[in-house]
């Protein structure tokens, strides 16, 4: 019983913490951020199982988190507000050849992050990017600028 309560508390605690770590833990993780996510997860596991390492206890904790996650996913699908709270909202980082400073600063993004995403698309100059959008899952979508044909 206590494990289930700890699992629920741990789930929401992690949800808020990961949301506060901005969206970088999603898809743009550096090795350092990768280590942080595992470290946080490991610490939460210790508190959740509460010294009881039996298969029964661990299975109950996993099932609790699984059911809770399903419930939150159902809520997200029903309400865009819940979706924005849990996953955030897509944000435009670059629009028509200009950085959206407020968003870049707010999301602690550097032009290098956008160029990394652009290179994945085979774009080698920032001037060829019309829109850069930070998606809810942490990836950066790049939309190419159309070149004028002389």
């Amino acid at each position, binding site marked *: 019983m206590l494990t289930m309560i700890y699992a629920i508390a741990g789930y929401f605690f992690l949800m808020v913490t990961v949301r506060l770590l901005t969206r970088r833990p999603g898809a743009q993780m550096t090795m350092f951020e990768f280590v942080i996510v595992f470290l946080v997860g490991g610490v939460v596991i210790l508190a959740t199982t509460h*010294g009881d390492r039996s298969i029964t206890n661990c299975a109950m904790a996993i099932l609790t988190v699984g059911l809770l996650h399903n419930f939150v996913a159902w809520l997200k699908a029903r309400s865009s507000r819940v979706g924005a709270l849990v996953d*955030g909202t*897509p*944000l435009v980082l670059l*629009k028509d050849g200009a950085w959206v400073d407020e968003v870049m600063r*707010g999301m602690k993004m550097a032009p290098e992050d956008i160029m990394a995403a652009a290179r994945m698309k085979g774009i080698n100059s920032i001037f060829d990017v019309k*829109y850069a*959008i930070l998606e809810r899952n942490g990836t950066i979508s790049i939309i190419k600028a159309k070149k004028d044909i002389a």
Partner: protein
Amino acid sequence: MSEVAFQKTVGDSVPKINDEVAVGEDLDFQRKWWKFESVMWWIIALLLLLNFAGVFGRGPVAHAKLANDAMLVKYERVERTGTPSILEVQFKPNTLGRGQVKLHVSQSIVDGLGTQRVIPSPSDTAIGRGGLTYTFSAEQAPGSVQFALQPSRPGIFEFTLQVPGSSPLSAKVVVMP
């Protein structure tokens, strides 16, 4: 041929940027979130400072003392579930020197605060009066007894310690989850 269970017409419901790219950006929400985020970072910093000070246990603020003419008790006013700690009873010189010393502890020391061991082992233990009365062989001062505690559940527990013939000492201990 299988039938389609239900159909819903596709609508252009996602807000666009420059009337061109459907993004669904909600900058007003994001601005509110950034404000919430900055407040939360301050709260987190405050929680860490309080934790460093020992407000949530295992720090200077958590250390506490109680004293009367028979003994001095050192304990933690904030404990943590499953975390070991020591409650120490130092007997005053007038309490020792009679060959033995008796100490009555309330049941909450054993149940709520989870006594694992009493150091040194008492020569005799008697139950009654809502707790346990330990008898220790004793010589001249200084002398002390330690209770190795490890609470098994969170809560607020009041304990009482008494050397028969002197006034009891009581305190509350908060056990954090």
